[in-house]
């Protein structure tokens, strides 16, 4: 895990002092609200529907138990006892007061955390594969390069007042678990024919009003060229990206309008200017950073307690089957803790739950935790013999739900319950879908099915890439939900296809149920997933199930 050096600590202290002064200058009138707004946003502070909201970065989703305990402290001391894990490896507090935020930031700084660039027209918090450092299919741990990018992008003078936000994600494994193709810029660790490690760069992906799948701009950027290359991309976009219309400002539109070849040529020319200014200090820093991410000394021992519990305890077995993933060391496992208890708000954890997870990480997990874009918490390194004890503790605190990858493991943005931009609610829809399928006792039979819900066109809930996507809109003053099918958030990324007219708030859960019934009746075998079935049979059986009246009218 990365530990702040003196430079990081001094930077953050100065930055927090600046923000404290900015709050004071807003209150004394030196700064207008228009001027203060981008400053508070670049420090993670929004003004939402009912209150301010502070979005704290969990860079590349990694944190230790002391950091998790501090997140719990913020929830208790300055908020209402809980926090909300987001789809971009952040945590949001929904109820802080403006005057308390500088103190909250100082408390975070004590454990090397901040809220910098979690909002605003800046380079946002860098995200990464949530199984980084643990996954069996990993080429290289993406976190050292993500940390280097975090430092480079932090307070970058050229990129604090851009036309729009810029999101970067990093992956280092065969499988993409970081939704790389839906980012403004994605960095993928690859090896060339000579066996050297470098980076494949994609740009122009994004969701929102105009969903686009990222395109490869460079197949292999050598390690030492990465920062100047990214700097060239962002610099070119900052210069030529549109500023006349915020819905056309993201780099996906720039790439679409100019073409990837034109952008590549401009980036290459800018890179040629920038590259000579990098004299190698970033590579020395990278070597230092890498040491922080050395794998822990994995303990060895018998896995008998695990094997016994798996054989004898069906509740444990169900949890192990859904919530564990293969670790690079065979007697270890990756544990995903579900923050999706049926009927609860997706991604919300209480201060008590955060402390329980912190303690489990400290006692059993080499002091490491991860946050996923799917709004769950991960213990990346657990010796299998410890799993029964961990499961028992999780169950006691409402954290033992066995549903990872299943229909109730829903991504949902805060929606109209909190967000000032939202056009409809997301949270109650997610709660009702999860509760309904839990009542039906169908979710294990249904298998892998991702539902993603956004409460507005901005698509924070990733609905475009959900197997079933739900988009909440305001239709003539009433909540209305559009359904898309066939979206894919992995390396085979696809934008879902719209099924037809939307559904009213009280019609959306029955509509999802009809889709699932249709899937169960047309799938080839129990092993064929929803997405595989959709790709084989297409939209028509689902459309028929969703709109039976339309069929009747035609007949």
């Amino acid at each position, binding site marked *: 895990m990365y530990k702040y050096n003196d430079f990081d600590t001094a930077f953050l202290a*100065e*930055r927090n002092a600046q923000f404290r002064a900015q709050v004071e200058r807003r209150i004394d009138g030196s700064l207008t609200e228009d001027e203060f707004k981008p400053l508070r946003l670049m420090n993670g502070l929004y003004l939402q529907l009912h209150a301010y909201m502070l979005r704290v970065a969990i860079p590349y989703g990694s944190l230790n138990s002391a950091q998790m305990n501090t997140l719990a402290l913020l929830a208790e001391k300055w908020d209402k006892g809980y926090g909300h894990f987001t789809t971009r490896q952040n945590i949001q507090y929904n109820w802080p007061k403006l005057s308390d935020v500088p103190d909250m930031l100082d408390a975070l700084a004590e454990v090397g955390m901040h809220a910098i660039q979690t909002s605003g027209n800046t380079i946002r918090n860098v995200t990464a594969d949530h199984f980084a450092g643990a996954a069996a299919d990993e080429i290289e741990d993406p976190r050292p390069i993500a940390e280097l990018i975090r430092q480079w992008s932090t307070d970058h*003078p*050229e*990129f604090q007042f851009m036309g729009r936000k810029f999101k970067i994600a990093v992956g280092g494994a065969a499988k993409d678990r970081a939704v790389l193709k839906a980012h403004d810029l994605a960095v993928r660790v690859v090896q060339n024919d000579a066996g050297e490690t470098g980076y494949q760069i994609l740009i122009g992906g994004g969701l929102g009003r105009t969903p686009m799948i990222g395109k490869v701009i460079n197949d292999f950027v050598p390690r030492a060229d990465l920062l100047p290359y990214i700097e060239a991309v962002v*610099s070119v976009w900052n210069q030529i990206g549109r500023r006349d219309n915020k819905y056309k400002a993201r780099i996906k539109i720039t790439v679409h309008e100019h073409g990837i070849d034109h952008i590549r040529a401009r980036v290459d020319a800018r890179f040629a200017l920038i590259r000579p200014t990098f004299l190698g200090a970033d590579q020395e820093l990278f070597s230092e950073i890498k040491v922080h991410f050395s794998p822990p000394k994995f303990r060895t021992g018998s896995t008998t307690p695990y094997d016994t519990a798996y054989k004898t305890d069906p509740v444990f077995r169900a949890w192990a089957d859904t919530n564990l993933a293969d670790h690079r060391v065979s007697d270890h496992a990756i544990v995903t803790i579900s923050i999706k208890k049926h009927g609860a708000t997706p991604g919300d954890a209480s201060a008590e739950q955060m402390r329980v997870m912190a303690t489990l990480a400290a006692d059993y997990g080499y002091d490491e935790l991860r946050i996923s874009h799917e709004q769950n918490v991960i213990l990346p390194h657990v010796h299998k013999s410890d799993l029964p004890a961990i499961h028992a503790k999780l169950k006691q605190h409402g954290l033992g739900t066995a549903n990872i990858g299943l229909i109730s493991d829903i991504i949902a943005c805060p929606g109209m319950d909190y967000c000032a931009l939202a056009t409809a609610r997301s949270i109650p829809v997610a709660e009702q879908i999860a509760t309904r399928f839990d009542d039906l006792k169908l979710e294990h039979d249904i298998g892998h099915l991702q539902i993603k819900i956004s409460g507005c066109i901005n698509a924070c809930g990733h609905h475009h890439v959900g197997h079933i996507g739900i988009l909440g809109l305001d239709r003539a003053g009433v909540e209305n939900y559009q359904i898309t099918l066939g979206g894919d958030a992995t390396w085979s990324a696809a934008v879902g296809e719209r099924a037809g007219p939307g559904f009213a708030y009280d019609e959306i859960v029955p509509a999802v149920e009809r889709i699932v019934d249709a899937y169960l009746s047309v799938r080839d075998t129990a092993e064929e997933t929803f997405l595989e079935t959709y790709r084989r049979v297409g939209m028509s059986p689902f459309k028929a199930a969703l709109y039976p009246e339309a069929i009747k009218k035609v007949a």
Partner: protein
Amino acid sequence: MTVIITDTGFGPDTWTLGYEGDTALDLPSDTDPVQLSERLAAQVQMIRIAFPSFADGRGFTIARHLRLSGYKGHLRATGHLIADQYAMARRSGFDDVEISDELAARQPENQWLARANWQQNDYQARMRGGSPAAA
């Protein structure tokens, strides 16, 4: 009237040749710095770049590009910049910032001097390993 801001605070404008002649350029924020650098005449000693709004950060990229392309003359940011952007302007290669008297009254000298320490806590300079971009 306007105020010129440097690391030592507020001061008068010492550029006396105006922006009409061959030695100075007055540029909008949508200037293409690539074309500009290619055509830049050797006698240009002063380039002033407009910030029509503090939210329009293209001027930072223009300044940085000019410096990377070898421009050694004076670079000035003018318009609606706020004190919090002083460090960004200096790190991007500007020599000074020009604001209206009205803005200077609302954001007095001490708020700008608070960012005169722009050479400290600079992640990007640390990454590159040399001196700041302006040098």
